[in-house]
């Protein structure tokens, strides 16, 4: 088994018996480790003491509203911006001192198209291969392989500008994977895509992470995208407010979530809080209440305030509820 095959979360060092004998493998060779990372733009703190780990084979989502710091974090991880405070290790390499080694390991998909629209799909891939030292038959085979895998073979000779945004995003990902990176970073990968293309993308990423043991890290402000990740880190104003599996995070909300709209949310909120002994949060033009046995609560509250309530919604918690609970702010 290769070194990449091992994923050990708790032990620091793994001893592996190989045919050559003993070989020591450190766990950090398979991970991105971010420790106390901070970044400031003049007076504004964009990242504040952020720490998390991601392992190979995992899809990790950084979820946050606009201005939460996820783009800054993405730019630092993709080596576009330097680490100014804290440490980042990517597969055992220090991002502050080993940028070149790290760049060889990364495949990066930016939010804004990184393709030359006037060139064909295959020309874009060929140029990208040259940047990573691929050439000749190796490059040719690799391009054919990726075109095949991403269903782009019949579009290979078409100019990128005439492709749909979903297809262009596929070309971007094929390009990022061309040099067989071990880490794939994606910034808002589903922006501008329709529902079908989003679902396809999510499936592709899942397959890549599992079959090739690639570490996939993406940023998103879309809850659906985050739900599809193995683990999620939620960012708010530069701070990492939650970290864990989507289900685990949602369980923290504790019960069901009820959303109520009325003509006077504030008065109704106070009345409900007094009558039912629950805490109410005003968020985004509605009242948000968390409670256990939500179906009974809905029945009782509608019976008590039949005229005041205009609409009432009852559901299981989402990652948005996690965000609201942890920050007290609406997810905008």
């Amino acid at each position, binding site marked *: 088994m290769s070194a990449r095959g091992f994923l050990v979360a708790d032990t620091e060092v793994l001893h592996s018996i190989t045919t050559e004998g003993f070989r020591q493998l450190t766990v950090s060779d398979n991970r991105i480790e971010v420790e106390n990372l901070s970044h400031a733009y003049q007076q504004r703190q964009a990242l504040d003491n952020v720490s998390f780990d991601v392992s190979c084979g995992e899809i990790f989502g950084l979820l946050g509203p606009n201005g939460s710091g996820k783009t800054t974090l993405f730019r630092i991880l993709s080596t576009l911006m330097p680490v100014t405070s804290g440490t980042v290790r990517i597969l055992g390499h220090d991002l502050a001192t080993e940028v*070149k080694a790290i760049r060889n390991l990364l495949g990066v998909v*930016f939010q804004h*198209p990184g393709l030359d629209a006037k060139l064909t799909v295959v020309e874009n891939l060929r140029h*990208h291969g040259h*940047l990573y030292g691929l050439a000749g038959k190796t490059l040719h085979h690799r391009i054919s392989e990726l075109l095949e895998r991403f269903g782009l073979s019949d579009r290979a000779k078409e100019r990128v500008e005439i492709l749909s945004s979903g297809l262009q995003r596929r070309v971007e990902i094929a390009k990022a994977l061309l040099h067989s990176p071990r880490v794939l970073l994606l910034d808002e990968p589903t922006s501008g895509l329709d529902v079908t293309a989003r679902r396809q993308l999510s499936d592709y990423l899942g397959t890549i992470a599992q079959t090739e043991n690639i570490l996939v890290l993406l940023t998103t402000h879309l809850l659906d995208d985050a739900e599809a990740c193995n683990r999620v880190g939620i960012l708010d104003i530069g701070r990492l407010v939650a970290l864990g599996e989507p289900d685990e995070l949602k369980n923290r909300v504790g019960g069901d979530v009820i959303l109520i709209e009325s003509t006077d949310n504030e008065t109704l909120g106070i009345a409900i809080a007094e009558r039912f002994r629950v805490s109410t949060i005003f968020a985004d033009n509605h009242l948000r209440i968390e409670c256990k046995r939500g179906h009974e609560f809905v029945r009782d509250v509608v019976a008590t305030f039949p005229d005041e309530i205009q609409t009432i919604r009852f559901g299981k918690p989402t990652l948005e509820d996690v965000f609201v609970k942890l920050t007290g702010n609406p997810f905008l």
Partner: protein
Amino acid sequence: MFWLLIGSGLSASFQPTEAANGPGYIEYFYPGIVVLVLLFTSIFATISVVNDRREGFLQSILVAPVPRWRVVMAQALGGTTLALLQGLLLLLLAPTVGIRFSATSILLSIGVMALLAFGLTNLGLLIAWRMESTQGFHAIMNLLLIPIWLLSGAFFPSTGVPGWLAWTMKLNPLTYGLAAFRHSLYFDTTANAFGEAPPWTLSMLITGLFCVLTYVGATLTASAQTN
């Protein structure tokens, strides 16, 4: 067009002092217009850097394991190619103003044009890599690049101009680039009577130095602006 309109308009009042029956203004202005085309094409080729490094194709290149000096060299050679192709189209018109090419002079002219285009693209890159907006780039264009061209001897010779202007022209690197180009156009003939142009060797030396310095400057700027 620019060349024909201005050249024809000013030809009546243009009289070189040295040669009573020397070249007319259209012929004098011709190398200046070639250099203007090189300047514009080179510089405009670099504007895309301003936006591209924040959102676009260049971002993918900046995260690739490629040293900045190679990125800048590729950009400079790209701009040089574009500018040179445009310049070559204009060079086809040289016989219409009475320039007689020999094999040496045409090769030299193309060589000097390539050098000039390379230096000017690097000058553009040096500015573009610092700029936060394309508006800022246009402001620099007007404040710096147009005057550099106007005061290079492209529009009028330094003969007879006020002392401060003569000195400004002497300190302008493009004066030497233009002089090198004029010398190469007339390399085998003695028809080069255009006032006090700097000598050939000095012109080539300073043009070469301009290329090296702008390239180093652009590379350092690109390295400083990125991780």
